[in-house]
């Protein structure tokens, strides 16, 4: 089927309509450097990045010979420099200087345009002004150096740009250069002197510094100039010579000496590494011992400033802790660590005798030599191996446990748990008791010892609370029984008074006095807790048993009633005032 038939069928316009798509493709020109196949793959859209960037553009064309005069020269040497041909080729390739007639202007214009690119590297040191004869005679005279030789030295220094190695190497002053014509004087000419580099330097520095000082008196010099002046004036040839001798000795060591030195260096490295390790270990220990971390090297405390700073920090630490340590042994324990540095000579504290960061320990360490430090090091290493005495165990906080609960637990959590009793009321009571003792509910410093003491405290508070509960119960029972007894006595009186007819009412009366009791029971229940003793059965049982025992001991006659209202009676008394418990505690 021909295309024309299809068009016909689809009612499309006849051929002749340009097909824009195809035409575009024709318009797109394949850039050079891309193969046809690759270009076909690219499709219609040109890639965003030009691919044919780094193409070899052919050999660079060098202009045969252009004449450029190196501006760095004093004379007019003209050399033929090879240069790249500029892109536009309308500039004449060769400028002939000899036939300059018509191109002269152009040529001049060009050379003026083009500074010789390497001229900027042609630099020379700047030297201070040379002395005049007058200046020399007044300021620079020397026993050792003649004027001629000084001149020669200054020339040489300038020539070799202060390269002293070269100057000393080329130094060859002929003293009799001037007087050579006279036979008589040549006999008197001093023998040629060998000058060392130090002598030359000393002389030159002296001359240069003097000239500098003549130019500006030292008071008017700029800082750089003054520095220079100072340094030149302070040059000590003797010391320099000595230094060079030592350097030569060092250079000419034998192989054995070199080996020994490397071994020693190795040893030194090892020792310092050990020391470092020791210091870090000790620092870790101290941080664990809860000591304010201090710099372990004592050099900071050598001057008074450092010492006062140390005192300041210690006082600060002290102050912050004082608030916590009003009462109790647990308050003192944490502060003792902070206080030790202020009383360094206290013999009781084993810790500060070996501590390097206390002022005392610091000074002793500073006076000891490196060897001593190394020895201490070794000792420390031995200490780490040997078993600790109980005192040391206490010092480092080493503990031995029979059985450890798995996982990590915090002492502070443990202390927190202690303050939480099983019942809310109990907890409140504990809290109020602690508040009364001015012990914070949450421990500030839950160290081992503090927590232990806290535990004890909580335990005794609980005991006392229990005791108070029992006491109140017993009291109320006594009251009830006393009331009953009164009643009985009253009735007996009445009986005695009325005799027989009153026997009937006795039973009525017996019922009557009991009702007052349930009322307080209800009140006590409401006040105590929403959840009755069911939740803390153990405690209740314990309480119950203790109360029963107590009651049994004190008042065996109340046994029958006890059975009826055991719990009730306890609760009756429980809403009694805190006064009783307070009294007990005191």
């Amino acid at each position: 089927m021909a295309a024309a038939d299809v068009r016909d069928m689809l009612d499309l316009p006849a051929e002749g309509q340009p097909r824009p798509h195809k035409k575009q493709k024709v318009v797109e020109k394949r850039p050079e450097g891309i193969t046809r196949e690759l270009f076909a793959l690219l499709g219609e859209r040109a890639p965003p990045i030009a691919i044919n960037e780094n193409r070899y553009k052919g050999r660079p064309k060098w202009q045969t010979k252009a004449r450029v005069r190196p501006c760095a020269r004093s004379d007019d040497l003209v050399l033929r420099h090879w240069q790249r041909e500029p892109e536009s080729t309308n500039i004449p390739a060769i400028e002939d200087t000899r036939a300059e007639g018509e191109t002269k202007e152009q040529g001049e214009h060009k050379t003026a345009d083009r500074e010789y690119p390497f001229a900027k590297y042609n630099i020379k040191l700047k030297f201070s002004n040379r002395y005049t004869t007058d200046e020399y005679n007044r300021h620079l005279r020397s026993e050792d150096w003649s004027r001629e030789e000084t001149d020669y030295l200054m020339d040489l220094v300038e020539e070799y740009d202060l390269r002293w190695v070269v100057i000393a190497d080329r130094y060859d002053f002929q003293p009799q250069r001037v007087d050579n014509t006279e036979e008589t004087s040549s006999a008197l000419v001093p023998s040629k002197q060998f000058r060392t580099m130090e002598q030359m330097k000393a002389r030159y520095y002296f001359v240069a510094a003097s000239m500098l000082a003549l130019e500006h008196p030292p008071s008017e010099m700029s800082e750089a100039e003054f520095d220079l002046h100072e340094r030149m004036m302070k040059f000590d040839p003797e010391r320099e010579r000595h230094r060079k001798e030592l350097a030569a000795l060092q250079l000419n060591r034998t192989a054995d000496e070199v080996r020994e030195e490397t071994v020693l260096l190795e040893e030194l490295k090892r020792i310092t590494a050990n020391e470092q390790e020791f210091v870090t270990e000790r620092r870790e220990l101290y941080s664990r011992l809860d000591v304010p971390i201090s710099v372990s090297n004592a050099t900071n405390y050598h001057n008074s400033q450092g010492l006062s700073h140390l005192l300041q920090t210690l006082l600060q630490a002290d102050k912050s802790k004082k608030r916590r340590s009003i009462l109790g042994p647990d308050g003192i324990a944490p502060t003792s660590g902070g206080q030790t540095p202020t009383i360094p000579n206290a013999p009781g504290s084993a810790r500060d005798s070996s501590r390097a960061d206390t002022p005392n320990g610091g000074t002793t360490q500073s006076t000891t030599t490196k060897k001593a430090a190394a020895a201490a090091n070794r000792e420390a290493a031995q200490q780490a191996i040997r078993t600790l005495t109980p005192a040391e165990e206490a010092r480092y906080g080493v503990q031995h446990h029979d059985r450890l609960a798995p996982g990590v637990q915090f002492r502070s959590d443990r202390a927190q748990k202690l303050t939480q009793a099983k019942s809310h009321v109990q907890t409140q009571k504990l809290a109020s008791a602690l508040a009364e003792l001015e012990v914070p509910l949450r421990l500030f410093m839950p160290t081992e010892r503090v927590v232990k003491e806290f535990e004890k405290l909580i335990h005794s508070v609980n005991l006392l609370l229990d005791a108070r509960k029992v006491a109140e119960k017993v009291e109320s029972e006594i009251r009830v029984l006393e009331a009953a007894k009164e009643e009985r006595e009253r009735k007996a009186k009445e009986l005695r008074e009325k005799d027989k007819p009153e026997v009937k009412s006795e039973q009525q009366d017996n019922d009557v006095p009991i009702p007052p009791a349930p009322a307080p029971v209800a009140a006590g229940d409401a006040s105590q807790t929403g959840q009755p003793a069911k939740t803390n059965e153990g405690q209740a049982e314990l309480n119950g048993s203790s109360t029963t025992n107590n009651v049994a001991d004190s008042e065996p006659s109340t046994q029958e009633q006890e059975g009826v209202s055991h719990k009730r009676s306890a609760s009756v008394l429980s809403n009694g005032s805190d006064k009783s418990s307070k009294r007990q505690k005191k």
Partner: protein
Amino acid sequence: MNASVPPSAAEYGGDEVSAIVLDPGFSTTRAGFAGEDTPKSLVPTYYGKYSFEGQEKLIFGDDVFVTPRPSLSVGNPMGRDGVVEDWDMAEKLWEYSFTSRLTGAKPSNPLHNGLNDLVEGELPTEMEGVETNEKPLADSPLLMSECSWNPTKAREKTIEIAMEKWGTPAFYLARNGVLASFAAGKASALVVDIGASNISVTPVHDGMVLKRGVQHSPLGGDYISSQIRALFKTNTPQPITITPHYLISSKTAVEAGQPPQAKYKTFPPEKAPDASYRSLLEERTLTEFKECVVQVWPGPTKLSAPGPNGVPNEEMARSTPGRPFEFPDGYNQVFGVDRYRVVESLFDAKATILDPDSQFPAPTPAQTIPELIKAALNGVDVDLRPHLLANVVVTGASSLLYGFTDRLNQELMQLYPGPRVRISAPGNTSERRFSSWIGGSILASLGTFHQMWISKKEFDEHGPNIVEKRCK
């Protein structure tokens, strides 16, 4: 980097002025354009002289070795100490070295060659500048190298030749030690140059030779040749005589150690070349021997000393497999420990193979390489020594002896156990052989160097003594 983009002038620093670098040595003379990596023109410094039909003729270049002309004598303008002795011949030879390959032959006299003949009706052109154009180097500045102990007279003579005879517009004379250190990319170095006639140790600081440290001794390649000759004389199965190729007409292969079976050429006395020709060609054979067989005992101790595990080093050397060498006449032999012995005296004066006929007196201990280096270092400031030891540059064709740098390294480490010793010896043979030329090539193509040239004008003003002032 793209090759078609020129490097920016600042980082590249090159500025070509088509300078010619000429590095004359005792054995070869190197010449080439600055900026290239090897000299284009490498000619032997030996020249041939013979008379033909009553006229004296000279042969330069490799042609010297080729034809045994009647009464051909071979000469060398250089003295054994590296200073020019025969200035006339040196000038001719040097001129040959750059005209043969680089600048082209000297044009004939323009007054007579017909090119300048006046055409009818034309005014005569200016002939003033023409004179300079006739000279072979009129277009090119010339950088020449010299040994560090070159006397002032020789330096002045050199600049006179360059300026007056060759007409160079600019000239510079550089020490070959400095150039070698430049070729190694160092401004400060201790250059150990093992040449043909000399070994020299040159301390270089900031591109300047430290004259008091410069040391040299004659234990160069020719001395090693004399040691090999002495060895051949005392060879055990039979003494070996070196017969150069030009005397052999045919040879047959023989077993190792068997006497050679060859037909020799004979020259009638009036047609025979001079003895110097024969010794030059024998030297070529010996060079081949040095390249193929000779080996430097690697150390760390001397060849005569006991080795590290108690076995004498000689025994150790004997146990290594030998190297065979066949002489031009077909005689061949495997060389065992002897190949170490011929060069051992460069490091150990006692190990010299004595030979009463040799032109070289037995070396003194002070002439050995370690002692030279020691003396050179003692001649410079103590602060500089460790730096120099860390920058030891080894150059010269004779330093290509197998194992030379290893041994030198060992010797220096023993001599100076403290400071770090570092030897910089290019592995590329041409870099080792031509390092002072390469340094000159680098130097003369630097843009910053062009201020250093001594121009013709300056020479005219100040006379030849300017070379002392400028080329320090």
